[in-house]
């Protein structure tokens, strides 16, 4: 199996090499109610090299999910241009997307949801089933193929969404807090799996997370967003693997972590446009 890949496998391998993502002057606003417009993404210029693993971090409502939808080609930017590889983004299984709110198809079983992303391709039934089953095993849902989404727990649903995004062996992975509903230990497992996949298939990854530690564990680069704009763009030059206590004790790790923490805390508390501006700050509060 491992020494002689079948022809379709080879094809998939070839498409699954990462492609770069480029945002140039991208803005997006939404119309709410009586014609008023909320700006969600403002003048974003960002270039992500192919095979790069980029974490996106920032306070609630700052435009992270919107940026991902733009990158997937699901939203048209109001101004500016987005390119994946050399072309505007075209949604498809080659760009894997994990939505923040899962978006499972309620009338399809777990297997049907995961297989959905592959149905456009002309795979034969057994090949498809085989790949779905393998992907379900990967996310720890091997025994649940026949269940419907309403019969799953929150974390299980998230893993189905994850499996659906990965099954197309995408060259670009857009992940919106893909592990938020998982317990810490399952989350570690999934993080390791993601890193292993990244090292094997080299997709370009844009990964939204709420956890500074997760960002520093996974990413080559951390982008900080605030109020729709890119505020900071940090290289993470830590050696991999980074899970060990030693790695976490490195001064570079501590410096980055402290910097990101205070940067986002400022965004949340000290930015006059923030919803929490003026909230009493316990100045004496320390962080570990």
């Amino acid at each position: 199996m491992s020494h002689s890949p079948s022809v379709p496998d080879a094809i998939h391998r070839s498409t699954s090499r990462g492609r770069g993502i480029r945002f140039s002057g991208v803005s997006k606003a939404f119309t709410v109610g009586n014609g008023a417009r909320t700006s969600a993404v403002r003048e974003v210029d960002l270039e992500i090299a192919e095979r790069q693993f980029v974490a996106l971090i920032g306070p609630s409502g700052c435009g992270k999910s919107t940026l991902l939808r733009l990158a997937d080609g699901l939203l048209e930017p109001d101004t500016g241009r987005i390119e994946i590889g050399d072309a505007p983004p075209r949604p498809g299984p080659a760009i894997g997307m994990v939505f923040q709110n899962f978006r499972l198809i309620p009338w399809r079983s777990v297997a049907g949801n995961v297989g959905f992303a592959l149905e456009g391709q002309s795979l034969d039934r057994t090949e498809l089933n085989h790949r779905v089953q393998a992907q379900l095993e990967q996310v720890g849902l091997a025994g649940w193929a026949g269940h419907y989404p309403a019969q799953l727990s929150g974390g299980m649903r998230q893993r189905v969404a994850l499996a659906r995004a990965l099954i197309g062996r995408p060259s670009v992975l857009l992940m919106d807090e893909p592990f938020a509903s998982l317990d810490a230990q399952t989350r570690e497992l999934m993080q390791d799996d993601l890193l292993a996949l990244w090292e094997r298939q080299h997709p370009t990854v844009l990964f939204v997370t709420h956890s500074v530690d997760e960002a520093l564990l996974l990413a080559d680069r951390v982008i900080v967003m605030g109020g729709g704009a890119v505020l900071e763009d940090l290289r993470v030059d830590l050696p991999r693997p980074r899970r060990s206590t030693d790695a976490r004790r490195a001064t570079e790790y501590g410096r980055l972590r402290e910097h990101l923490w205070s940067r986002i805390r400022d965004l949340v508390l000290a930015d006059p446009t923030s919803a929490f501006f003026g909230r009493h700050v316990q100045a004496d509060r320390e962080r570990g």
Partner: protein
Amino acid sequence: MRLGVLALLMLLWAVAADNVSRNIIPSPLETFEAARRLWADGRLPTALGASLVTYLGGFALAVAFALPLGIVMGAFGLLGRTIEIYVYALAATPRVAFIPLIILTLGLGIEAKLFVVFLGAVMPIIINTYAGVRQADPDLVEMARSAGASRSRIFRAIVLPGAVPYVLAGLRIGATIGLINTVVAELYTAVTGLGGLLALYGNTFRMAEYFVIVLTLAAIGVVVTEVLRLLELRLTRWSN
């Protein structure tokens, strides 16, 4: 439970038959007798067969036409908004208004009848399918786009299954109106089938026979809607 209600209705009927003057309502027994007679002499089976052909044929045509149209109207917003008003105008125009035109173009035979049934059943199916398609979950549609699904696959996999409860309600209404229009068709074009018997017994005041025909029609309605209920159970298994 249903049987209990049935028994109650029978009782009510018997009481009504006894109390309404001038034999307008036949007693259950007379009706049963008439049913036996009509069945035995072959009139009822023949008429039933003719009506069923008209009914099911016209209904099938309506489904075949209305589902795609409702879907297309819902899918292409502009098209839907442009033609919906004409659809409603057409829907509100009494069928009898079309009878001369129908006779002129389709004659008096089965084509004309099928068309009258079609006209009646088609509207509710279009309107409900249209409403169902427009109610598709935008999050799921976006997810499907993200998965690279083509327009038609999004329709088949996301929009249509999501519209199933609407479509089924539309089919239910369409089925009942189609049945009513079967009778209309059998009265206004060449007189045949259950509609013909209804006119015959109505005009000659044979109320027991008349009731047999009415109950036969009601029974067809029940059978068809039960079939639709089974279909619904199958299609919505996923929600327990």
